[in-house]
């Protein structure tokens, strides 16, 4: 099967820019991606674009063609909505289309404008990724849902808030060198433990921020990359997607993420690697507990051991499997529709040796990107590998 090459990536800074529209954000990300790739806009066969709350934040549906226009691309464009996994799902379809020979060049990415809604408005908008009748109307928020999982995890496998705090500290530390990150500042365990409570046991510093931002990636077939002599040393070699029941209470497990496990297993098999081959991973740490559930679901750590991985230095930049070298959603930010594509962009950049934190993973050849929607009712996982250096 032909590899799908990452020809170029572009990210806007993630942060608090309420005056910027998503079309402005995506235009910027796409300009960077095209410049990075050396690919002509006229060669683009399709735009696959992730966005979650455009109707609520900007009164704007039908964002596919709008964003093709913003990016200067004359090609059919489709919006993907899968909550926080929107652009992960878009990348997965892009990969399959290129593999199938349908398309040679795809612009894929996403954007989200959130901070203009304010904290309450964004909390309400995010909540619609849960079951409106049975969860939202009972007062469940997204931090609340992850808090329910955290409490269930503590009860089943042990651990405490201080273990989670080490994850936040690690991800802030990693973001210090990432000039696209929302927070480029170090925090201490005590900061996390003493922060205002959002939904017990999770506090303000266990939670990713509300962010604006965009991500764009130019993907090409191997044949196109060869023909145009592109510098594209990293390929997406595995893709997987998993699904689960919408409401957390309908799941078999309250402290595991079977959808992520399914997506990971599929992506590993697709790439022909296993978890032991993974040198680094960007995982969906919308809340500190989410990173624990992710690394366990992806078989990077045994179930019950993910909770202590950051505290023990196993997932830090100099650890055996660095997790979220970009700073993760926690410190880099989480503009929902952009997140999945941005994770893949970060993994590609880390593997190519072009990331400020590449020095921690100099010999890395395989990386993983894990993107989750809702309380992991949706999950996509992608394997990226260095194929030409």
């Amino acid at each position, binding site marked *: 099967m032909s590899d799908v090459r990452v020809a170029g990536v572009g990210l806007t800074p993630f942060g608090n820019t309420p005056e910027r529209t998503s079309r402005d954000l995506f235009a910027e990300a796409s300009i960077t991606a095209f410049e990075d790739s050396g690919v002509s806009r006229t060669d683009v066969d399709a735009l696959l674009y992730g966005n979650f709350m455009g109707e609520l934040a900007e009164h704007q549906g039908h964002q596919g063609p709008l964003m093709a226009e913003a990016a200067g691309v004359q090609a059919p464009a489709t919006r993907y909505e899968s909550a926080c996994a929107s652009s992960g799902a878009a990348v997965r379809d892009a990969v399959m289309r290129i593999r199938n020979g349908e398309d040679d060049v795809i612009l894929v990415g996403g954007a989200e404008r959130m901070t203009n809604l304010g*904290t*309450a*408005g964004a*909390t*309400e908008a995010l*909540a619609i990724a849960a079951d409106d*009748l*049975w*969860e*939202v*109307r*009972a*007062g*469940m*928020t997204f*931090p*609340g849902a992850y*808090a*329910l*999982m*955290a*409490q*269930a995890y503590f*009860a089943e496998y042990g651990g405490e808030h201080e273990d989670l705090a080490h994850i936040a500290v690690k991800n802030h530390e990693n973001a210090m060198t990432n000039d696209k990150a929302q927070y480029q500042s170090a925090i201490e365990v005590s900061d996390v433990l003493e922060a*205002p*409570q*959002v*939904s*017990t*046991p*999770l506090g303000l510093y266990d939670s990713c921020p509300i962010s604006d931002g965009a991500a764009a990636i130019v993907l090409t077939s191997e044949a196109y990359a060869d023909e145009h002599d592109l510098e594209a040393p990293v390929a997406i070699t595995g893709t997987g997607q998993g699904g689960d*029941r919408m*409401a*957390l*209470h*309908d799941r078999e497990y*309250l402290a595991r993420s079977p959808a992520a496990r399914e997506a990971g297993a599929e992506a590993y098999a697709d790439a022909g690697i296993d978890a032991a081959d993974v040198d680094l991973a960007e995982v969906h740490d919308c809340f500190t507990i989410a990173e624990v559930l992710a690394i366990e679901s992806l078989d990077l750590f045994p179930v019950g051991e993910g909770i202590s991985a950051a505290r023990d230095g196993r997932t830090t930049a100099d650890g055996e499997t660095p997790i979220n070298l970009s700073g993760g959603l926690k410190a880099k930010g989480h503009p929902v529709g952009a997140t999945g594509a941005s994770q893949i962009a970060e993994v590609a950049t880390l593997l190519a040796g072009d990331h400020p934190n590449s020095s921690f993973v100099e010999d890395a050849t395989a990386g993983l990107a894990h993107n989750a929607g809702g309380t992991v009712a949706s999950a996509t996982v992608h394997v990226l590998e260095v194929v030409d250096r």
Partner: protein
Amino acid sequence: MSDAAEIQDAGFDDWIDAATAGEAYALECPNGHGSLPPRRVCPDCGSTELEEVPLPDTGEIETFTVTHVPTPAFADDAPYATAIADFGPVRITGQVVGIDLERVETGLEVELEITVSETTGDRVIGFSPV
């Protein structure tokens, strides 16, 4: 609430009505899978033969959280405890009422008590300790 909202919520409102009357139910398929309405198909096995079965009088809290940062619909209710309770054929998410927040714990035995949001006056699924 507008008529449109009531139409949209058909099936769910019926369940809240039943729970208010002490007649809460789950849907069950011939294979014994429980689920919550509105629903035409068993999400576990695809059976379309669903029947209403009464819920047990009490359930047990499996996990809980105290929410301090609510959505606008619960602005005046915070802080409040949200829990997932096991009622046999189904689990349900609800707000724990009638108890100090510090005393909410895993394993607590509760019964359904439909309550109202202090913010909106809308009906909310509640759990009260037995």
